């Protein structure tokens, strides 16, 4: 009976739960799904991380390459993020060139990297106007069950913290780069941004960490990215039903609390991998 109701009237089905201040999966309105994190899962990448928020699984691999800096920013390296939503992760994605959602997510991640200054691009420069690092941050979704952006930001941050790059020097005589694979260094992480997403139901009820089903029924999605100094790095709301400034403030307060939670999780995982080595 309940299954038939859910298929026939999905919105009414969700409403009946929200009325009782809970959700179909048993969560409260302000409750996040259990989040697990694993770092260094890809051996061939310079840094990697896999995160699961409920069923949503996202993996990120960081690959460093050497390149010449651009002429208009000779003392800066490059960070190139890319979010991939393959057909594997959900039936809503088709094979072929990246769809709108994947492109919008890539742009969002690029804006978060620029906005938060997670890594100073100057740190990626090896020798001014000669050599610098390009960090390719490839994020791939393995299982799509909503709240992609939160998972992407967590996996990106964890992968960057896991990244080790070999030391590179330029030989003065031959003018060639020499790579010392034996001595690897961690990246200097400047800021620790964490995203929190919210879905708005029927223009009024705000729930955190929406699943794919909740996302498709919601009237608006909000993503707030905060750093450890309680500064906002992004406040993204791509349209949808309008919200008053007070409601937005409420979202930000919750995002700050979520930041502490995720910050602790990443610290713990990084510590444990260090200890196991």
């Amino acid at each position, binding site marked *: 009976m309940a299954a038939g109701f859910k298929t026939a009237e999905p919105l009414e089905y969700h409403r009946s739960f929200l009325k009782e201040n809970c959700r179909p999966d048993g969560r409260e309105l302000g409750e996040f799904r259990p989040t697990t994190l694993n770092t260094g899962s890809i051996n061939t990448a310079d840094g990697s991380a896999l995160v699961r928020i409920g069923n949503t699984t996202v993996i990120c691999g960081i690959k460093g390459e050497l390149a010449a800096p651009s002429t208009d920013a000779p003392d800066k390296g490059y960070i190139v993020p890319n979010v991939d939503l393959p057909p594997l992760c959900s039936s809503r994605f088709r094979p072929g060139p990246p769809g*709108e*959602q994947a*492109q*919008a997510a*890539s*742009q*969002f991640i*690029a*804006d978060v990297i*620029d*906005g*938060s*200054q997670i890594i100073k691009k100057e740190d990626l420069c090896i020798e001014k106007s000669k050599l610098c690092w390009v960090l390719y941050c490839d994020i791939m979704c393995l299982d799509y069950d909503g709240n992609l952006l939160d998972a992407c930001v967590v996996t990106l941050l964890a992968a960057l913290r896991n990244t080790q790059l070999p030391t590179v020097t330029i030989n003065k005589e031959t003018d060639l780069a020499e790579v010392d694979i034996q001595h690897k260094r961690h990246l200097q992480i400047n*800021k620790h941004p964490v995203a929190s997403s919210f879905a708005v139901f029927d223009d009024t009820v705000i729930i955190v960490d929406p699943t794919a089903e909740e996302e498709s029924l919601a*009237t*608006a999605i909000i993503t707030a990215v905060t*750093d450890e100094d*309680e*500064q*906002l*790095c*992004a*406040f*993204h*709301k*791509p*349209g*949808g*039903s*309008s*919200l*008053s*400034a007070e409601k*937005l*403030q409420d979202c*930000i307060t919750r995002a700050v609390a979520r930041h502490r939670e995720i910050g602790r999780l990443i610290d713990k995982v990084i510590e444990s991998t260090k200890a196991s080595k």
Partner: protein
Amino acid sequence: FVEERSGVGSVLREYGSEQNLLSKPDGSASFIQGDTSVLAGVYGPAEVKVSKEIYDRATLEVVIQPKVGMASVRERAREQCVRETCEAALLSTLHPRSSFTLVLQEVHDDGSLLSCCLNAACMALMDAGLPMGRLFCGVTCAIDAESQIITDPTAQQEKESRALMTFAIDSKDCSVMMSLTKGSFSVKELQQCIAVSQKASERIFQFYRDSVQRRYSKIL
């Protein structure tokens, strides 16, 4: 043809608009903010591809064309913002299984392009006479190095800014429909920018009202 100059000491640059300037689209408008200019055309309600058909409402497609080159990832992100804002304003359930297409052509970018796109989109939707539950307008705010808030910044001011935010403001209760930000800022600064944008939006909504009034007073 409607043109309005904002008064001395106003927070917005000079802005103006022209409606119904293209013959083929069902609705069209240009919107000019200072040197930034966008041309918008709306087609619809028209037939929809079966793969994109939604059984209980109309499908809206938004295309943003840059001045030079191909549309990139940045345009895609903007398209998503404009589309979802328009979807919230349009009463698309009145036209089920049909399509609306909104084409936005950047004519010149001198900062605040996304807000200009939103304004042009709203004017074009009004010109097409599509049923809307509310109107919306776009306002861009920049926070400069001295933490001053500049509304409707030029490209130069955008480049020098520490943070940049664009909001779509709703005409019903002046609340925030869309928000897109760049750079980092405090919660207080965000709230200040929202308040400033809400204030600026009143002028734009008055402009909408005046331009529609002037247009229809000629016909009647």
